């Protein structure tokens, strides 16, 4: 009996630990057209022990003038060492417009083109497709995914990105025929709106997607969290441009060409009004233009992680930060990002 009790205790703890989910594996998206992580990026990857990189290899859209489906950009690999030493998941971004009115033959053609182009980036064991499909394009997109799966080598698994509305309404929006999903836990706000709320992530907006979502999503899910910033420029009340970050906020404050408003929102977008004509991010801004600058602070990032606990993530889920180039310039440290990974897996109080 004396011997039995410790054995039972060990068995019990083993059983319990098997039910516990693994810690999230950190990963990064590389969304630039040239793959060349510099020494700072490599240090960040090493410190955080990042093995997996989701790298965009093609941007595919529809040519407005002739209607052809064609790549806008193709990845150029300049840092081959990093490419060879990490686990690369090639990704393609396809605009939703591509699947509007596309027939089966064209779907097969597209699948074939992508599979062929992907061969240049081999070896890989996972391939990801990013498309914000709608009810109108769902059938074509899903059928394309099935065809792409057939064109890919057998050992390659297919994953797809899932937007928050697709996560909340799987019955309505459908579930893509892939092995895994990458839930993009951001872009919660309305981009066209000239508001004081952070348009990349706002906990209140995110909660709307979480409340009433099914407890279980039909696919094993990974998680993508934002690190980026952007400025929406409103000219005479209309969204005119989106200027990607990082923005020279210090310069903007000191130059006397902008007036900054301080919103009362807990997670605000900074609102700026142009007082004098000035260039920003390659665009000429005129007096009266309004900027809605949304950023992800460390506090807000932790807030996303806390809310992400409510998501139905896979037991072996990965947490991919979007994206590596920004992580470096926005100075997120490995410790901060590690804390985010741990926060998602902590039990809710």
């Amino acid at each position, binding site marked *: 009996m004396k011997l039995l009790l410790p054995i039972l205790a060990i068995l019990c703890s083993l059983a319990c630990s098997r039910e516990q989910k693994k810690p999230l594996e950190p990963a990064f998206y590389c969304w630039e057209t040239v793959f060349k992580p510099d020494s700072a990026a490599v240090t960040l990857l090493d410190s955080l022990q990042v093995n997996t990189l989701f790298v965009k290899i093609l941007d595919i859209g529809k040519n407005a003038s002739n209607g052809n489906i064609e790549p806008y950009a193709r990845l150029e690999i300049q840092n081959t060492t990093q490419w060879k030493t990490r686990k690369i998941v090639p990704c393609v971004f396809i605009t939703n417009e591509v699947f509007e009115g596309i027939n089966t033959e064209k779907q097969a053609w597209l699948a074939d083109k992508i599979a062929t182009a992907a061969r*240049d980036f081999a070896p890989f064991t996972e391939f990801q497709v990013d498309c914000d499909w709608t009810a109108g394009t769902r059938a074509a997109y899903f059928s394309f995914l099935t065809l792409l799966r057939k064109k890919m080598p057998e050992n390659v698994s297919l994953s797809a990105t899932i937007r928050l509305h697709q996560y909340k309404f799987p019955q309505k929006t459908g579930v893509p025929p892939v092995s895994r999903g990458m839930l993009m836990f951001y872009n919660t706000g309305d981009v066209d709106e000239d508001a004081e709320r952070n348009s990349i992530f706002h906990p209140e907006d995110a909660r709307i997607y979480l409340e009433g979502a099914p407890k279980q999503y039909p696919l094993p899910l990974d998680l993508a969290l934002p690190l980026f910033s952007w400025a929406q420029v409103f000219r005479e009340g209309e969204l005119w441009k989106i200027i990607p970050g990082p923005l020279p906020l210090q310069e903007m404050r000191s130059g006397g060409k902008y007036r900054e408003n301080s919103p009362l929102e807990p997670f605000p977008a900074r609102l700026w009004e142009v007082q004098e004509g000035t260039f920003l991010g390659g665009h000429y801004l005129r007096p009266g233009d309004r900027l809605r600058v949304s950023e992800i602070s460390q506090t807000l990032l932790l807030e996303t992680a806390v809310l992400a606990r409510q998501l139905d993530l896979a037991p072996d889920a990965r947490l991919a930060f979007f994206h590596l180039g920004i992580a470096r310039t926005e100075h997120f440290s490995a410790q901060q990002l590690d804390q985010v990974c741990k926060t998602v897996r902590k039990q809710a109080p």
Partner: protein
Amino acid sequence: MQNRTKTGAMTLFTILKKPWSGLTWTFLAGAWLLELFSAPPQPPATPPCVPHAKPFYGYTFFDADFVDASAAYAPFFLRFGDYYERNFSAEVLQQKENCEEWSERFCSKARWEEVAEVIYESDAFELAQLHEAASDPTRKTPLPYRLEDNNFAYVVAYNGCAEVTRYLTYAKRCEAHVVPRGDGWSPVQRNITDMMELIREGRERFDETQSAFVKLRYLYQIVRLAHYAGAHQMTVDLYDELMPRVDRKKRSVIFYWALGHLAGAMQKLGKYPEAAYRYSIIFRHCASKRTQAFRSFVIRDDKDWQKTLKFCNSNEERATLHLMRAGGSHTWAAVDMEAIYDMDPVNPQLELLLVSDVQELEKILLRTQVTDHKNGRALAKIKREAVAKHLLDLQKFVRRVIREAKVTNPKTWRAVDGYLELLANDRYAAAKTWDRLEDELGYSKQDKNTFQQLEIWRCLMAIMNLDTTASDTVDRLSYKVRSLTAFDQNPYFEPFLQEWLSAGYARNNHPGKAMIAAYPPHTIRYNPRLDVLEDLLRLSNTFDPILLERTMMIDTNPERIKAYFLETKGVYFLSRGEPEAAAAIFRQISPVEQARMTQFVPFANRFGEKINREPPRETAQNRLEIVEQLIKFEQEAKAAQALQDTNEAKIWLRLGDFWYNTSFFGYEWEVRDFHRDGANQARLAQGPVFPLEGAPDGNRENLDLDLAFQYYEKAYQAARTQEMKARAAFMLARVQQKQWFSHPECTYRPGNPNVPLLPAEYMKYYDLLITRHSKTRYYETVVKECKWLAAYAR
């Protein structure tokens, strides 16, 4: 000129002349602006997402020839439809510029097309043959077969221009390395070794060449190769080394082409201001590379801007930078114009910016509520509110320019001054400004173009003067406006006139007249509105000329036009489940017109899902007969119910069949509708009103099956035989299935080969049919025909 002016103006004078004083006009202008800003138009009833709708960017009444049509800057600032695309195709322009330079070099002995044939269309073999011919001092070597009749080839060979032909063979070899490669799916693979070898060879040839004309071309090939090879520093070094060695006394487009490669390389090296300055030079001087220069022009921040300005050697160059900055920001450019004007008042591009700014004003001010209704409200509220300030700022600037008289074409500015007055609704002042200007116009091309432009604006003024309250004269005046020559010259006039009249009628409580002025008559049937139909019926009794003119598309017979509206109104009531009201309306149609009404067979019980109507049979009835029959059935059913007649269930079933068959899902949908769009099956939950291009209030489909359900339920309850119960249960099941298809959570779409899965609450009657009535003959028949039922039964 004077006579012509008067004649032209006289036609308009009769329309424009009103015995109103300037003060009245000022008051009206104020009231108009007040109305514009105090009562913003209602949001469009038409949903924004209309399949296949063409984008609408607003009206413009500028004549393409008013500003310098040869100014290739124009596409960057103006909207003249495809005018500039037709006239300024970059590829053609590039070939033409280069070939004209070659042609000029050879004393214009050959047309530019012949030069193009040699330079762009000949292969390496033909060029080698040409070189052989040019190198032969005996002049006995023949020209290549394809170029036998080519004057350029002949002149080159005859004059022994071996330096030229040697260059052409080299250029052909370079071409293979610099044309765009791949389709984007595969990586661009260039043979860098070969390219470097060609650069080395080119440099040797550059040194050996005597002709400055050919030397510059070698430089261009070398620099281009280096740029395409990705050797950006090398590109800069080669340019800096070789360009000073070229005699550039004579202007050449090739200099700007080479400069483009230098700018591209500099940008890649992070020298943005240096690159931007060079792109501005190209933009100013080289039409064929203007688009590329404009697209490549990047100023990242204010430091770049200041540094770029410092490179400029003259006010003209600075003005070009301001021009490019203005072109990229797509908004009011009055500030930029003032800056350019202060630096370079004779800059011809000022006029383009002026027109561009006025076009922005046109976009907002020449919109009515009807424009918004038709095309969606594209403009932000703030923009509408700010328009008055922009208009005043621009007027102030234009008047300053006119006062100072420094610009090249002051008459253009004066004409625009009048147009700004018209846009401010000060029509009296506008007419006066143009009258004064017309008196000074002569016979020059510029003056003729200005006159032409004034004619267009006077035509616009004539439309804006139309008084929609005076129905006895407005039609006559509209006709006169349409007969003006200027009216045919701008495709925007007709829709603008329709919308202007429509907005006026709407203000005067004539919704029907407003509708029919802006839309073809058949469109009122997509989603009929009672107020519109009643107004049209009122007008049809008064022989209203506008109504008659617009309804000519229906018929010329007033009685037939009235019948058209009455039938539409009857269908309106029928589609809302009010057969008694429909009958009362249909009875107002004259017997002659009743005999012409389409016939239908809506009471048959069918279980097929096809919605195609069969040709009318003997039992077919027109809509009046149908509603009378419907009312009769209703009375008979109620009587049968009270008397416990065995026919009760049968009559309820017939009534249910009517409402099912004439719904969106039934084969006789046309009884209660005029337009059914099959594409709406894929988005039923968004209904019952769906977007449709050209439909003023969308397209309404009869999706509501509540009445059919109620009658079928009564039939089921009253049925005394299993056969009748099976029949009613099957129809109830079909109704429930369609109701589920219209539910927002339904993901089933037509065309899906799978059997639709229904939630339990929508399966009630299928279950009932399968469990309780499967032993009937009706069930046996229907289960063979209906694959869904068969699947559910399994």
